C-alpha cells in the first residue's frame, strides 16, 4: 500500500528545474506581473515585479518586502564557535553580544577578501553567517583544531526583508512590537506556533528589518505582512529596486563590486579590506585571524587600490565606466552607479588607484557610453570623490522608530 504523504521529488531530477524556488515562490510568482525573473545563488528570483520606480520609491516612502532566501547561510555551533569566528573573520565575534548582529568580512591568508556578510549571534555558542557566495570548503578547513560544527543551512531558513520608513508600523500592526529594538539587534517571536526572529538589519540604508522563520511558515509570514501592511501600501520589490537603494546606501555586493579571492581568475582582481574601505572593521588586537600577517604588512606598506563614492556631473548614469585622471590616464573603474532618485545626484561606487582616491583629488573623469536610440553618445563627465553613504537618514537609526 502506498503511503499517502506527498511524493518527494526525485533528487536526481534537479536538472529539470536547475533554479530552485524559494519558500515564498507561490506569492512572489503571483505578484510578478512582469514575469521578470533572474537567477541568484541557485534560486529563481524576481528582478522587477511591476514597476521599478514604484518599487524603489516605496522603499523610501512606505514599506517593502524583499525575498532574501537565496542568501547563503551557514550555522556555526559549539564551544569553539567564538574563537573559530575570531580566526575566520576580521571583526571580534567574541564581543558580539547574544542577540546581536554585525557586518563582517573574511580574508584568505594573503589578506584578500573572500566575502562579506552578516554574522548573527543566536546563542552563546551559536552563530549564523549570511553571505552571497559559497564557502563550505574554506569554512571547514578553517575549523580544523576548533571545537565547532559548520553546517550549510540555506534551505532550512525562510527570510524576508521588510524595509522602508513604515516598516516598524507594519510590524506593529502585524503584532510584533519592536519599538525598543535597536539597529543590529534581534528579537524572537512566535509565529503560527513556531519561531520568528526579527533583526533590525537590511540592505537599503533605511529603517528596516529582516524576518527569519522556517520554510513551512513562509507563506503565513508573507500573508500576515501584506494584510497588516495594506494601509501603508506595502509592496514586494525586486532585485533591481533593491540595487538602486543599496547604491544610495553605499553598500557593496560580492561579484558586482568586487571579485572574491577564491573565484578570481585574474590575480590582479582581488582586493584587501584596505582596498574596499573595510579596514575599519579589523580588530588588530583580538589575536591571530586569517590574513592578519599580510594585512599588517599592507597597512605598513600601503595599498594600490581604494574604494570610493563618486559624485558625477550631469544625470547620465555611469555603470561600468572607466575612470581617468586628466582625461588621459586610466585610474579606476565604476562598479555600481545610478541617478539617485532619493538624493538627486548622479552617484557611483568605484575602484580608484591611490592616490587618486582622496577627496582632494581633482581632475577625475568618467567615460560614459550612453545608449540613445541604438547609438552610443560618448561623454566625458567630471567626477568628484565623496563620502558614502550617499543617503543616510536619521530615521534609519531612531529608537523607537517613527510610527507613520
Amino acid at each position, binding site marked *: 500500500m502506498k503511503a499517502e504523504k506527498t511524493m518527494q521529488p526525485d533528487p*536526481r531530477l*534537479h*536538472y529539470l528545474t*536547475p533554479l530552485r524556488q524559494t519558500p515564498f515562490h507561490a506569492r512572489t510568482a503571483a505578484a510578478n506581473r512582469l514575469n521578470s525573473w533572474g537567477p541568484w545563488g541557485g534560486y529563481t528570483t524576481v528582478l522587477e515585479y511591476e514597476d521599478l520606480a514604484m518599487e524603489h520609491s516605496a522603499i523610501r516612502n512606505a514599506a517593502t518586502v524583499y525575498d532574501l532566501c537565496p542568501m547563503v547561510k551557514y550555522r556555526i555551533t559549539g564551544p569553539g564557535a567564538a574563537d573559530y569566528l575570531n580566526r575566520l573573520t576580521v571583526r571580534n565575534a567574541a564581543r558580539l553580544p547574544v542577540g546581536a548582529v554585525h557586518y563582517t568580512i573574511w580574508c584568505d591568508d594573503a589578506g584578500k577578501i573572500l566575502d562579506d556578510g552578516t554574522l548573527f549571534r543566536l546563542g552563546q555558542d551559536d552563530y549564523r553567517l549570511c553571505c552571497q557566495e*559559497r564557502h*563550505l570548503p574554506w569554512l*571547514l578547513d578553517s575549523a580544523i583544531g576548533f571545537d565547532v560544527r559548520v553546517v*550549510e543551512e540555506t534551505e532550512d531558513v525562510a527570510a524576508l526583508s521588510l524595509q522602508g520608513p513604515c516598516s516598524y508600523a507594519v510590524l506593529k500592526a502585524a503584532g510584533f512590537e519592536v519599538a525598543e529594538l535597536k539597529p543590529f539587534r534581534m528579537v524572537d517571536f512566535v509565529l503560527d506556533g513556531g519561531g520568528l526572529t526579527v533583526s533590525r538589519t537590511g540592505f537599503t540604508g533605511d529603517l528596516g528589518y529582516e524576518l527569519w522563520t522556517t520554510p513551512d511558515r513562509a507563506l503565513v509570514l508573507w500573508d500576515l505582512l501584506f494584510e497588516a501592511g495594506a494601509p501603508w501600501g506595502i509592496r514586494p520589490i525586486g532585485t533591481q529596486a533593491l540595487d538602486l537603494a543599496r547604491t544610495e546606501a553605499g553598500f557593496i555586493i560580492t561579484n558586482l563590486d568586487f571579485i572574491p579571492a577564491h573565484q578570481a*581568475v585574474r*590575480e590582479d582582481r582581488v582586493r584587501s579590506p584596505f582596498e574596499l574601505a573595510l579596514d575599519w572593521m579589523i580588530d588588530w588586537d583580538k589575536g591571530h585571524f586569517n590574513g592578519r600577517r599580510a594585512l599588517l604588512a599592507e597597512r605598513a606598506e600601503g595599498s594600490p587600490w581604494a574604494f570610493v563614492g563618486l559624485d558625477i556631473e550631469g544625470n547620465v548614469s555611469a555603470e561600468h565606466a572607466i575612470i581617468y585622471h586628466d582625461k588621459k590616464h586610466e585610474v579606476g573603474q565604476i562598479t555600481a552607479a545610478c541617478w539617485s532618485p532619493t538624493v538627486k545626484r548622479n552617484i557611483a561606487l568605484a575602484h580608484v588607484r591611490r592616490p587618486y582616491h582622496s577627496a582632494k583629488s581633482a581632475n577625475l573623469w568618467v567615460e560614459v557610453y550612453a545608449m540613445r536610440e541604438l547609438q552610443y553618445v560618448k561623454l566625458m563627465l567630471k567626477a568628484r570623490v565623496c563620502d558614502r553613504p550617499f543617503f543616510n537618514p536619521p530615521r534609519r537609526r531612531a529608537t523607537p522608530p517613527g510610527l507613520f
Partner: protein
Amino acid sequence: MTYDAVIVGAGHNGLVAACYLARAGLKVIVVEKNDWIGGAAVSRELYPGFTYSNCSYVSSLFRPEIMRDLELPKHGLQILPYEGGALFTEGGGYLGMFRNHDANRREIERHSPRDAEAYDRYARDVLRHCRFIRPMLLRTAADPASFRPRDIAELAWMGKQMFGLSEMAMYDMIRFWTMSIADFLDEYFENPAVKAYQAVASIIGTALGPMSPGTAYVLLHHAMGDVDGNVGAWGFARGGMGSITRALAASLGAAGGEIRSGSGVVRILVRNGRATGVVLENGDEIVGRRVVSNMDVKRTFLRHVDETDLPGAFLKRVRNFKIRGSSGKLNIALDRAPRFTALPDGSPCMKGDLHFTDSIEKMERAYDDWKAGHYSRDPFQDMMIPTMIDPTMAPPGKHFMSCFIQYAPPRIEGNDWSDADRDGFAQTVLNQIETYAPGFKDSVLHVEVRTPRELEREVGLTEGNIFQGELTFDQLLFNRPVPGYAQYRSPIRDLWICGSSTHPGGGVMGAPGRNAAAEILRDIKTPKKDMSDAYAVL
C-alpha cells in the same frame, strides 16, 4: 615534376600543414598509405548506414584560429558542444555532469555538499593554468641552448609569462606541471566519484595511472581547448571526426594542393644530407624540395629513413622517446539506445561522456594490469553516443557508440596481440556496459575492435599511442620530441616533422601542423598567408 613540399600522411596535422603551405603559394602533395584519408581523425562506414569516429571521437583542442584561417566551416565543419555526462557508480548510482552551473552544483551536492562548493575554486585554478598555456600553443618553442635572437626573444616572452605570475601562482604552476592528478584532486575534493570524474581527462591516451606524477598536466592538456570560447568544453564533429579531415582536404583542394592515397611511403629519399622526396609502396617516386612527415617521430626516423643518415645521439633519443600504447577502442553500431538503469529517462547526461570507474583506486588498479602486460580486467572507459546529438551518423532510432578503453598494452605479456586477445579485450568492455545497461549486448549490430595492434597497423601510430608520444613534462615544449629538435626540424636538411610528436602535442589540435608550416615558411623566407596568431587571452 618537383613539389615544394611532400607531406607524408593525411592526418589532421599533415593536412593543416599542407593547407597553410599551399595558401602561401607552395606546390604541395600529401601522400597517404590508406585508401582513405584522416589518420586518427577519420570516419568510415564499416556497417551499412553507420558512420563511425574510428579513432579520435571528440573535439575541443582543434584551434579555432585554424578553423577560421582555413575556412573549414565553409568546407562543412561543424562542432556540436555536448550536453552532459555521467560517471556510473557501483550500486546503481551515478554522478552527472551538467552544463548549467546550478544543476551541476546540485548534482555534486547529492554526493558531497563540501565538494559542491569546492568545484568553483577547482575550476578557477584549472582555468588559470589554461590561460597560462594557451598562448604557447601556436608558437614554436624556444631552444633554450640557442643564442639566436629569435630564441632569446621567445625565451624572454616565456619568462615574462612566468614572471607575470605572483609567487604563489608560480609555486602552483610548478607543482601542477609535475604532480599526479590524485594528489591534485585531493587538494579540492573528498568524494571518490567526484575525484574519479575529474581524473578522467588526466589518464586518457597516457601510459600512466592517476597516481603517477605528471598526470595533472594531462588533465590540463584536455582542458585547455574550447568550444567557441567555452574553455574546457568538448564537442562532436558533426558527421564524425572524419569531417574535420574532410573539410581540411576540401580546403587543401581549393588552395591547389593534391592528395594521393592508397600507397604509403616506403622510404624518405636523402641525398647529400638533404631530403629530396619519397618512394611509395607502388614504386612511384615523388620528388620534392622538402619532405614533411606527419608520422610520429619513431616511425619517421626509425622506419623510413636510413639510420646511417642520422646522428647516433639523435637516434638514441628517438628510440628512447616514450610512445607507449595504453589504449584501445570499440566502435559499436547499435540497434537502439542503451538504457542505463541509473539514469532517469531523458537525462541529458546521455548526450556526453559516460564512465564506469568510480574511484581513483579503481583507475589505478586498471593501470596495474597494464604494467603486468595485460589489458585491464575492469577497464576504464570514456564512452560516448554521438548520435544522441548528431543525426547524421546512424539511421533514425539507431545509434553509434564510441568506447575509448584503457588500459591496453602494446603487447600482451611480451607477445603480440592475438585475435583471441583482441576478442577477450572486447568482451571485458561489452560486459562492463551490460552491467550498467542490461540488454545492451542484444542491441549490438556490429563492433569494430581496435587494440594497439590495429591502431599501429592501420593508423600508423607507434604502439597505438594516440598522442604520438606521451605528454609528460620531459617530452613537452622545447623537449618535444627530443631536445634540440623541437622546432619541427630534423638532423636531415629539408626533412621536417609536423605530427603530434612535436610541440604542443597530441589530440586533434592542428597546432603542430600549423606551427611546422610557419617554420617552413620562415625557413624559405616566404610570407605566411592566412595564418593568424593565437587569439588573445584577456
